[in-house]
């Protein structure tokens, strides 16, 4: 935590190396969050770049007491960037990629036969996750994939941690229902 505060302090003073450290540390988190929302690696790359440019511009105004941790602050910027992206641009994802978000990674696999049952399970879960309402999907991604606390998720989504727990509970129940009804999973 102390290390993080030092980094933020240096970045606030315009230290590019400190900002790069922040990027290395939190970039993967931001990448995963955006990727789970866009399902397109190229769009994700562009948006990650945009998020960190915005963060670089705004870091002087960042207050740890107000925003919580830097990771939740960055994820908040990421969320708004994705919202802006979909608001301003026409859908560019192909029907194929909409159908299967992991198609580009699956194609790079050495052989389709090497797909383990775990991978298939992941694909099914991904598809089921896509069927959830946006807010429920966001809560599940932030809470379980990114491992944030309900308080941190609440700060990003501007909701109380109690509300996040309710959304999370509803989302898991709905996900189970989708898996049962649409994929005969359970």
């Amino acid at each position, binding site marked *: 935590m102390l290390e993080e505060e030092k980094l933020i302090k240096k970045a606030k003073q315009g230290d*590019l190396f400190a900002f790069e450290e922040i990027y290395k540390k939190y970039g*993967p988190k931001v*990448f995963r969050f955006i990727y789970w929302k866009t399902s397109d690696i190229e769009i994700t790359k562009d948006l990650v*770049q945009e998020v960190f440019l915005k963060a670089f511009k705004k870091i002087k105004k960042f207050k740890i007491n107000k925003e919580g941790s830097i990771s939740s602050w960055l994820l908040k910027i990421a969320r708004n960037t994705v919202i802006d992206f979909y608001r301003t641009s026409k859908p560019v994802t192909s029907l194929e990629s909409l159908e299967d978000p992991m198609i580009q990674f699956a194609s790079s696999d050495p052989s389709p036969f090497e797909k383990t049952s775990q991978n298939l399970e992941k694909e099914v879960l991904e598809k089921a996750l896509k069927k959830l309402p946006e807010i429920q999907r966001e809560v599940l991604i932030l809470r*379980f994939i990114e491992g944030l606390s309900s308080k941190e998720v609440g700060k990003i989504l501007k909701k109380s941690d109690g509300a996040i*727990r*309710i959304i999370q509970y509803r989302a*898991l129940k709905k996900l189970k229902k989708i898996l049962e009804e649409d994929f005969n999973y359970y």
Partner: protein
Amino acid sequence: MLKLFIQKIKEKKEAEIFEEKLLGKIPASEGDKVLIDLAQKLSSFKEKTPVVLPTLNLEIEEKTSILPSLLKPVLIGAFSLTILFFLLFASTPKFSGLNQKAIAKEKEMIEKQISLPKKTERKVEVILKNL
């Protein structure tokens, strides 16, 4: 209304109890075990999601910031020039309606002063010839 309120409170309690089950503080029922299993599967996605971080290019920031920084003085300059020209035009007699009237009057006065009666004009001509 009351039914909805009671339902919300019930759901809130259930969600809080589930959170404790998720953390392993309370033993989970069979139904909840499925949900916990789902949550754990989602947690394992963190490692499985491919991360391809682009090289951070903060130069774009500098490039993009040039335009607004240049635009501001240019706009201010153009605005002050417009005001200056406007003031100049407004103060020029040609362009101000009020002054045009004054000029017309002044012209009339000068013409009156210059124009001499015809007789005196001829006298002046004779004098000038004799000279």
